[in-house]
């Protein structure tokens, strides 16, 4: 019964600890991404590798960024396509 009382009086979802945790989670996603521009660069290269299996893209104009808005973090990629490839290399892989 005491534990029940404790729960009623203490723990609820908007307790400051949960606020702290949520804020931390957000800030860390950003921090961790911010930490290494190399990581973003690597991601870019991998993206190019995968996408160029399907289409020809303008690699020099390719942009990859992490966007933080109020409540979420999004990966935003701007990839200018030059033209589609007719025979997707995918078949080669499968075959």
């Amino acid at each position, binding site marked *: 019964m*005491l*534990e029940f009382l*404790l729960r009623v009086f*203490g*723990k*609820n979802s908007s*307790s*400051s*600890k*949960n606020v*702290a*945790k949520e*804020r*931390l*989670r957000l*800030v*860390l996603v950003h*921090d*961790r991404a911010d*930490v*290494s521009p190399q990581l973003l660069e690597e991601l870019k290269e991998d993206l190019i590798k995968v996408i160029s299996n399907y289409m020809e893209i303008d690699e020099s104009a390719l942009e990859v960024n992490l966007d933080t808005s109020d409540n979420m973090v999004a990966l935003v990629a701007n990839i200018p396509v030059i033209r589609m490839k007719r025979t997707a290399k995918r078949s080669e892989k499968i075959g």
Partner: protein
Amino acid sequence: MGEVIVITSGKGGVGKTTATANIGTALAALGHKVVMVDTDIGLRNLDVVLGLENRIVYDIVDVTHGNCRLKQALIKDKRFEGLHLLPAAQTKDKTAVNPEQMRELCSELAKQFDYVIIDCPAGIEQGFKNAIAGAEKAIVVTTPEVSAVRDADRIIGLLESAELRDPKLIVNRIRPLMVKKGDMMSMDDIIDILAVNVLGIVPEDEMIVVTTNKGEPAVLDNYSRAGQAYRNMARRITGEEIPLMDLEADTGFMNKLKKLIGFK
């Protein structure tokens, strides 16, 4: 060949020096040969926490610059035979030491001691780079606060890029009652976020202040809860498996009452 362990945190004042003094002393109490190295040049503290400040003649800068032999700068602890301190310089320029010299120094110390414990300065600047240069293992100290955890995360990232993998975490200054009320992140909350292994958890403990005043680490006090926590950590470092402390035990009237009535 001894182990070289750096104790670091990113954020200042979270308890690196206290952890170094206590873990070092506890390891020595277990019979190991230990040297604690203070790399906080210009803001040295480890000597006062250990009560050895009046014995300093040479310091780490003197050693790296060849003004004295390593042996001359090592200060013997007054309590334990195997415990030594290599103090930081207080009045010299903090750029006086570089990572290469630290690597050399650490490998020399590792030949003579079972454990080389390095107290790192706050921040991620030169002092941090020096402190981790010669280390093989890392311990990251944090408190259950947003700013400290965030800085710990940054440090863990930096340690990993310096090839110091799998750092161990100390969560310091936990207040069980606040955790219980949901007003402080628990160890689990922090692990959840940082995803590292835990070396130990330390409760907020007034005895830390009292023992620091006296220049005697809390591990020497059998009644200090924080002292107990650090003794456990020392044993974990030596490879023993010791369960984490139950911080909620004896944390106040409510708990005692609960025990009395038979909850738990």
